[in-house]
């Protein structure tokens, strides 16, 4: 994100007028492994550094290190929830947040982080997650059943058009729920949900895709048989990474792959116990429990009454 000079100046003003040098040191400790105000400003240790000078130097260093957004996040935290039991009212905070919003970044109150405004930009990490840091995600995995057979049986253009329809269907169902497609391999992919009721959103997206597939197979499918897709949802803590190879090695991905491949019939959705445990009773009644050994999964499918 580009930090305009006016926004940096406003932040310097906010720090200088709201915090002591000691308070600024607290923030510095959260952002840097080691930060020495005296060394940075050139003031010897026996001299007091004017707050304005300390703040100016600090904001400049924060900006250069790409930590500006993190700084504002800490300021919001100190202002709202406080630090070590004490709140620190920060002047001009509203104006700073408003300036950031103009850059297409909005503050997510629930997760206490700045994220990209989905109306302006959509990136894999919502413009907020850092490589290697651990977060709680809900994941949705989709896989076209019998892909190899379909590819052998149908001409390439039919397969390409059918799979493109499927991708559009998935994209629309997850996009409206602020999900991000993390990987896509033609015959399926992995989608992540991070914000708000992530488990519910991932599950709704899965249910929506089951329903859309039903209508697609009934009205538009170019294949002689229904397009079959296995869908699974699981959630848990994992390190965020941009690299698909690293993603595959994570436990949560291995579990969701297992649920999708081994406990899910085509055109149904299976969710893990981790996901289901937060659901209300009436929502859970829409799923059929599937017990396997010590694990219980929950399956959603369209079951029609028999026509007499």
């Amino acid at each position, binding site marked *: 994100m580009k930090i305009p000079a006016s926004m940096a100046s406003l932040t310097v003003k906010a720090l200088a007028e709201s915090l002591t040098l000691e308070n600024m040191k607290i923030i510095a400790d959260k952002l840097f492994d080691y930060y020495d105000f005296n060394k940075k400003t050139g003031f010897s240790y026996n001299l007091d550094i004017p707050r304005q000078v300390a703040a100016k130097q600090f904001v400049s260093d924060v900006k250069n290190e790409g930590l500006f957004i993190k700084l504002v996040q800490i300021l919001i935290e100190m202002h709202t929830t406080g630090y070590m039991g004490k709140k620190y009212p920060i002047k001009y905070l509203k104006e700073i947040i408003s300036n950031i919003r103009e850059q297409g970044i909005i503050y997510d109150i629930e997760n206490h982080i700045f994220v990209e405004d989905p109306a302006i930009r959509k990136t894999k990490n919502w413009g907020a997650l850092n490589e290697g840091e651990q977060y709680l995600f809900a994941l949705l995995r989709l896989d076209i059943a019998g892909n190899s057979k379909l590819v052998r049986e149908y*001409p390439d253009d*039919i397969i390409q058009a059918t799979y493109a329809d499927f991708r559009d269907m998935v994209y629309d169902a997850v996009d409206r729920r602020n999900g991000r497609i993390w990987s896509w391999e033609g015959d399926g992919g992995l989608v992540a949900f991070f914000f708000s009721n992530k488990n*519910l959103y991932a599950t709704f997206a899965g*249910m*929506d895709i089951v*329903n859309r597939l039903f209508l697609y197979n*009934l*009205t538009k499918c170019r294949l002689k048989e229904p397009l079959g897709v296995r869908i699974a949802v699981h959630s848990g803590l994992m390190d965020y990474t941009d690299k698909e190879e690293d993603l595959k090695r994570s436990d949560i991905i291995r579990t969701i792959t297992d649920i999708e491949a081994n406990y899910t019939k085509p055109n149904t959705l299976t969710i893990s116990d981790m996901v289901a445990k937060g659901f209300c009773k009436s929502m859970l009644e829409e799923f059929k429990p599937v017990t396997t050994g010590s694990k219980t999964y929950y399956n959603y499918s*369209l079951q029609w009454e028999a*026509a007499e």
Partner: protein
Amino acid sequence: MEISVFSDSKTVSSCFSALEKSKGFSVNYNTLSELKKKGQSLPADAVIYADFSGLTQPAVKKNLTILSSLNRIFGILDAKGSYDDPALFFHAGACDYIGKAPFKSGVNKARIKKVYEYGIKSLNIQQAETASPVKFTSPVSGNDWKKITQGKEYTFSFMYIELDNQKEIKKRFPGNALEDFTREFHNFVEQSVLNINGKIWMWTDLGGLVLVPFDGETCPAIFTGFKMMLNRRITSFENFDYDMLFSYRIAIHIGSTVYQSRGDTGKIVSDSVNSIYHLKENFAGAGKMYLTEEAYNFIPREFENYFIKAGTYEGRDIYRMLELV
């Protein structure tokens, strides 16, 4: 309408898969060597497609001569886009040419209708008198609101949507909470019928009558109603933050009424409005969708298996959508 496809390709049916699922159309497949023999026995207004993909020049010439001599409406399939000058086919009497891109996206109902109309004109074929499945007492309204004027009578699609278990709902949402909840449900109905140009026309309590323009050919309200029933579970939990599964009933009818704008409908006397009101009130069961026989005549073919006859009410056959269990 019968479409006869002559092709030696195993995948040719993919081009006609949408058409095969359309009501009123059937597609049969034959080999190209059967063109002459079978072509002659087809009805005068049959539509033929011959697949010329990968044919040698002499084979193209031979089959084109056969097609011309049949004096039938015909089109050429060219899945690989191998012919640089498809106009030659039209010079020989073809009414359609399906090149690479249209082959990929598939032939639809609208295209075949155009081909048929063009062929009928150019071959001067006498069309068989086909009786319209339904006679309308009033002119159809058209598929949008542009030509609809107040005070005149039109044939519309009527769609009644109403929440079930109203007593329980009223208990659960006392006072202002009920107003908020009703507004949310009203908005949900309004949004759901937006893409079929539907308008909430009358609203009472926890449900209302939607008026959908009707062009005499299709009844999109059926698909919309079907989708609303299919997505009821997601809608309940995702659109309404009340942790409860809603149940609503839908009744669809095609009939006529004088049109007046919403709020100015107090003096309307319409048999259709009465009928659909009685149907949803006295015949319809909770959580179910119904079509009167007038609406059922316009059900898309692919949805037929998902409806069963539910009985007769006020002299009309009533059909019910199968339930999700």
